């Protein structure tokens, strides 16, 4: 029997008041990775109490570690080697699968060499954090292809070139996710064929950007097949936000701020996961190799806990397969 499907959530904890995800003090107040790790330790204890076994760590875990003008922060990973190793031990004890998802400012295929260099620096830090924790190949850094710039194909090719130049540590940890406006699964698959990078399937992005009309189950299967047989793939799942949007703008005639209602856009995440969409998705994935699911939604861990309850009510057979 396959191990259960892990459900995870990203970064911010809503289910317990006051848990911070990283040391957010400004540089003048000497934030430190070790303090972030203490926050992370408290989050891990919360995850343990809720039997949550997958979690995305804040990309800001090591404060100012790649700030070019603040060398005093550049050595934090080495300074925290023992503490990182201990966090890795704790993660293994709990059975936690961990990951990073760098911010939108990390762009490997940027036309700007300086931005690329800074991006590589950020990727290296996140990969090395996972290395220092002694985590296996399931612990990954999830990235998008990036910008289109002068053209779609040159942008893909530049990603491949830059990937090939990455430090080996980063190459091993990096996985590539289809996005919702520029690079879909066909593109990430094209890059996979040239680099071997593993692919993370994102259902909402696929619905929003699927120029080749690839059926969802085919796209999912294609991404899952890029993972080595002994490493459990992961995917991202989210539901679109359906509410009217309140947009604030300045009235040209009066100069006053006014609120305006606009229809939703389907790229935005809902607060909670739509249980029926999720059930249909898992049923559609029947027969494919097993995977873990990172839930992307605004209610974070509360949404994960609610989804468990929803599965128990509406699809008890799936609830038994999910942790």
């Amino acid at each position, binding site marked *: 029997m396959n191990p259960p499907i892990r459900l995870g959530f990203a970064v911010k904890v809503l*289910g*317990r*008041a*006051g*848990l*911070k995800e990283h*040391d957010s*003090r400004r540089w*003048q*107040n*000497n934030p*430190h990775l*070790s*303090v972030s*790790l*203490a*926050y992370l*330790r*408290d989050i891990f*204890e*919360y995850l343990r*109490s*809720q039997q949550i076994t997958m979690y995305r760590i804040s990309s800001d875990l090591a404060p100012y570690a790649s700030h070019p003008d603040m060398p*005093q922060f550049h050595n934090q990973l080495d300074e925290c080697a*023992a*503490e990182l190793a*201990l966090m890795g031990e704790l993660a293994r004890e709990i059975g936690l699968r961990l990951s990073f998802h760098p911010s939108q400012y990390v762009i490997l295929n940027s036309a700007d060499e300086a931005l690329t260099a800074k991006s590589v620096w950020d990727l290296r830090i996140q990969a090395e954090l996972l290395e220092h924790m002694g985590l296996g190949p399931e612990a990954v850094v999830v990235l998008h292809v990036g910008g289109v710039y002068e053209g779609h194909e040159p942008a893909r090719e530049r990603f491949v070139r830059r990937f090939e130049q990455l430090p080996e540590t980063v190459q091993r940890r990096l996985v590539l996710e289809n996005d919702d406006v520029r690079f879909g699964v066909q593109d990430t698959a094209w890059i996979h064929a040239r680099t071997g990078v593993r692919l993370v399937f994102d259902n909402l992005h696929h619905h929003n950007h699927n120029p080749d009309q690839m059926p969802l189950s085919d796209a999912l299967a294609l991404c899952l097949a890029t993972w080595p047989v002994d490493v459990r793939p992961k995917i991202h799942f989210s539901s679109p936000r359906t509410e009217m949007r309140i947009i604030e703008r300045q009235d040209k005639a009066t100069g006053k701020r006014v609120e305006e209602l606009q229809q939703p856009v389907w790229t935005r995440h809902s607060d909670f996961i739509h249980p029926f969409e999720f059930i249909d998705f898992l049923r559609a994935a029947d027969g494919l190799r097993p995977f873990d699911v990172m839930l992307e939604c605004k209610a974070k861990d509360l949404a994960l*806990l609610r989804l468990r309850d929803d599965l128990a009510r509406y699809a008890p057979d799936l609830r038994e397969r999910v942790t």
Partner: protein
Amino acid sequence: MSETADAVYTPEHAPVLVAVMNNRSDFERARDEGWYRIPLKRAPRRIAAEYLAFYQTGAFGDEGCAVNYFAPVRRFQVLSRGELLPDQPDHPRAADLYYRIEIGPLQRLEEPVTSPRLRRVTFIPTTLGRLLAAREVNDLWQRDDVQERLWAALREAGLLAEYRYQLGEPPNETLIDFALFCRDGRIAVLCETTPDPDPDLRERRPADYELVAGGWQVMQLGEREINENMAACVDRVAALVRQLGGQAATAD
């Protein structure tokens, strides 16, 4: 790194961990060497904070049974006791691991946060705003609305309760929402609120039978009862206090 920067950084919501200081040598290390230790095995569920504050026990004489000092947290390290205290290499726990929390200069609170009834204090997670405004240790806890109103009503009625009174040691501790100590017994008031503001607290709720076996009188108060008939709730507590001979001077 400048001391000044630490001193001016006092945001209201900054997390604070109130830790217990029960001997002078630990206090001198915090003051003179800038560190405090917590054994990994007995660490509370929440250790991370931007500030440490210290509850000094009765061992400190005039300064005892109060929080008098706090300090900014600079760094966490994990070290063995032997590394922390190299002058005690043969200590039976020399190999045990500890969090060594490096702190900046101790800052004295304008007013000490006292424990008027000398309650047993362990670790209390709070915020800088609460610490700076607190009059006594029970004010340090973040309470939900229902419990806050019950707390205020009990206080107004002259009933002196200890909030989140801890039984046992981490990680197996349990917490009584409101504990009242009387001359002839102890009362555990447990609030039934939905949803519980912290799902983890459900795990740390002591079982009724354990409390009764430990000599506690248990009183359950539902959220609806508290919301709709606070006066009756307070009367019930007051009646039980009278039945148990009135309140004791100390919480033990």
